């Protein structure tokens, strides 16, 4: 279970907290296990707050991001992770590549 919480300002994104995943591998696994509706829902909610979140996180240096802000960063990395499906493929069955699990990632 993901026990992460988000800063109060971004409480509205709590329904998507399961996307606050620190590694690419976890984000990819969750992407592959999601329906198109779930991806579209998360994309819309996260895109709407992206600019505010970047401004919020950039109040401290990237290298020294406090642990309480990291889930927010991981949420945005998940937005990036799913964006190709939502923006380019628009459907789950269009991608015609090697299974992502065979791209063994260093993170």
């Amino acid at each position: 279970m993901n026990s992460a919480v988000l800063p109060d300002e971004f409480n509205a994104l709590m329904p998507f907290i399961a996307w606050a995943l620190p590694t690419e591998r976890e984000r990819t696994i969750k992407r592959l296990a999601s329906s198109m509706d779930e991806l579209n829902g998360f994309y819309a909610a996260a895109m709407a707050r992206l600019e505010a979140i970047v401004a919020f996180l950039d109040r401290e240096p990237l290298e020294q991001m406090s642990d309480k802000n990291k889930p927010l960063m991981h949420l945005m990395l998940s937005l990036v992770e799913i964006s190709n499906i939502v923006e380019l493929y628009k459907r789950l069955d269009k991608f015609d590549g090697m299974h992502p699990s065979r791209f063994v990632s260093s993170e």
Partner: protein
Amino acid sequence: MKTIMTNKRWAEKYPALGTGPIETESCISPDYFERERELIFRRCWLNVGRVDEIPERGQYFVRELAVCRTSILVMRGKDSQIRAFHNVCSHRGNKLVPHERGACPGKLMCGFHFWTFDTEGKLSWVPDEENFFGLDKSKLGLTPVRIGIWEGFIFVNLDADGTQSLEDYLSGVATQLKGAPFGELARLRTYKVDERANWKVAIDAQNEVYHLPFQHRFTFPDAFILKDNKYTRLYDVNLYERHCVWSCEYNPDFKISPLGALLGQLDATKNAVRLNQMIGDFDFFLVFPNMVILLFKAPKADYMVTYNFWPLAVDHTIWEIRYYYPPADNTGTRLAQEYALCRLRDTLQEDAKAHEAIHAGLASRAKREIQLQDDEICIRFFHKVVEDHAGVAETLR
């Protein structure tokens, strides 16, 4: 637009390469693969890492060079110099370092009988030495491997009798990329892909952009300039002895995605690394035999991706992909890098599936040769260089 749209201009620039089809037996013949092992991989300079993997004295990494049937230890000595050795103990031949990387406090100890070597590869201690028969420890250091370092890339050469320097071997690549600030880039991620394909089949599939509007119709159909808004055209091609580079010009009409556009605005990096040595907006340097350096111009800072294709067998290859960006100094930049990374990653997954499908097709021997268009000239060149080293494959009947 700088790109010239004329048809068949590369055959005109490099007429000696010809225009005919290319044989495929060299990609599927186990005998030919053995020739490549001896005449290419055991003779040529091979990129095995970068100096920034071992910045501190005593740090080392091990590279399993299955294609050369050896394991290589690359270590920065106490004197700060980087050396390469066969990862084989001088006592009875045990593998000295059984793990992938580490740092030694001044000595490396073999796990079998604890023979001990210093960071310069010299044998420093033998347990119960008095019970041996006139051991000359000074002659029993690790077996060195020729090593060369170019712009931070570490290369080794298994040909102990070879005399050509790395710089000389790299010829035009070294000249073109001289002084490129690769050291200012940091590795963001590595992928290792275990593929059922010949190493050349995998390289060939990456070694052109003709396929972009088709295979990558969702991910990158229009990244590069198109003739009649339909077909890619290379901006430039340069052949350097055994290496080559092709370059593309970005398409000003590229349809950027909403997230890509937003992150482009939010990318506030002050770390504007510029690779002024580039030829086009995108350069693909194929460093013979198995390394590719891809350089990308980008609005805020340029970046690099490298490929290393390591054959395990005629039909089995490990494709290593490494992404290098200027270290991110703000959230927008970090996300923009992840965006570029994921978009290319998905494209490469499309490529990787094709590597296996193409290999299976060639292995069926339904086709004995493949057809190349003018913009696929670097595939033609690469196969010619392979033939120059390993000879012409005998076609089975």
